[in-house]
């Protein structure tokens, strides 16, 4: 990522406590300010990713999420409020994040990522946070992100378990290496405690911050498996598929 943009005095005050983080500092903050992230979607996981990235000062967030808020979204979708039931979730997410941090740019789009908009949405940002509840959408973003050399953080959960990996095109396995076909048994409606989706959302935001700011060690070629039922966290190494149709010919950018 580039050197970013200079900070104002107000930004130094807003981000004061994180400027103290070793290895981050003003240089890391400048990089976040100069960065842009697509978050698809802004539900239990993506809402927490977006919230943390807005608080941390990522300069531009693109939120993609179709549909109106339902009452049964509220156990996990923390950018939403009860009085917003029946109104577009993208609007609610955008409004909440602007309240949190009015110094950043937020583009809230009331559409899910699809073949019609994926080139524009993925192509217009520095990093993708994949938080959609379908493999079709995740694999679509992966395909475009790999071709365009954009990092992608994949955050997913089920019941009390979560998994997370970061794709750097040409350097790590991509999602199509892991899932060569759309898994047929995945059900778009799944059991979820909001605290679990919040955990994986915060972890995913941390991965994005590390990649954008050049901080720490992201999960490159690794997957974090979390079982919050017994608090087991395991990091496993992943294999790149030499015959992967998406990334086999991609070299590190």
């Amino acid at each position: 990522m580039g050197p970013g943009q200079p900070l104002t005095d107000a930004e130094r005050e807003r981000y004061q406590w994180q400027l103290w983080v070793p290895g981050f500092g003003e240089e890391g903050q400048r990089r976040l300010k100069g960065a842009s992230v697509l978050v698809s979607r802004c539900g239990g996981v993506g809402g927490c990713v977006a919230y943390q990235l807005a608080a941390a000062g990522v300069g531009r967030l693109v939120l993609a999420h179709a549909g109106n808020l339902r009452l049964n979204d509220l156990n996990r979708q923390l950018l939403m409020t009860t009085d917003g039931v029946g109104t577009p979730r993208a609007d609610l997410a955008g409004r909440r994040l602007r309240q949190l941090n009015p110094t950043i740019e937020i583009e809230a789009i009331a559409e899910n990522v699809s073949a019609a908009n994926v080139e524009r949405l993925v192509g217009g940002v520095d990093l993708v946070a994949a938080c959609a509840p379908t493999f079709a959408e995740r694999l679509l973003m992966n395909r475009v992100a790999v071709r365009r050399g954009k990092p992608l953080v994949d955050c997913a959960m089920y019941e009390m378990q979560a998994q997370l990996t970061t794709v750097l095109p040409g350097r790590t396995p991509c999602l199509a290496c892991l899932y060569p076909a759309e898994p047929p048994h995945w059900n778009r409606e799944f059991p979820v405690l909001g605290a679990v989706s919040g955990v994986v959302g915060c972890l995913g935001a941390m991965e994005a911050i590390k990649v954008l700011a050049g901080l720490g060690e992201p999960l490159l070629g690794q997957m974090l498996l979390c079982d919050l039922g017994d608090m087991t966290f395991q990091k496993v190494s992943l294999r790149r598929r030499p015959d992967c149709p998406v990334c086999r010919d991609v070299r590190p950018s």
Partner: protein
Amino acid sequence: MRVSVRYMAQLRTAAGVAGEAIDLDGPCTASDLASDLATRHGDALRRLLLGADGQLSPGVLVFVGDVQVGQGENISLKDGDVVTLLSPVAGG
């Protein structure tokens, strides 16, 4: 020879247990183990673990210890191995 199996995500629901110890009679690959487990636990697990050809489904991620076993890779399991079987999830 005894290995430990850890089920993740929907595989855990289908198996009905988080994990178990499995005694094996002889040399065994991860794919062999999957067939064995499908026999032990019945159709719900079989549908997730095995493809139509009876082989380990490409949609299941397999780890021995902390290392992924590639699709079609015939690594022989060793006594004491911990095998993690993960069905892909996309909860967001």
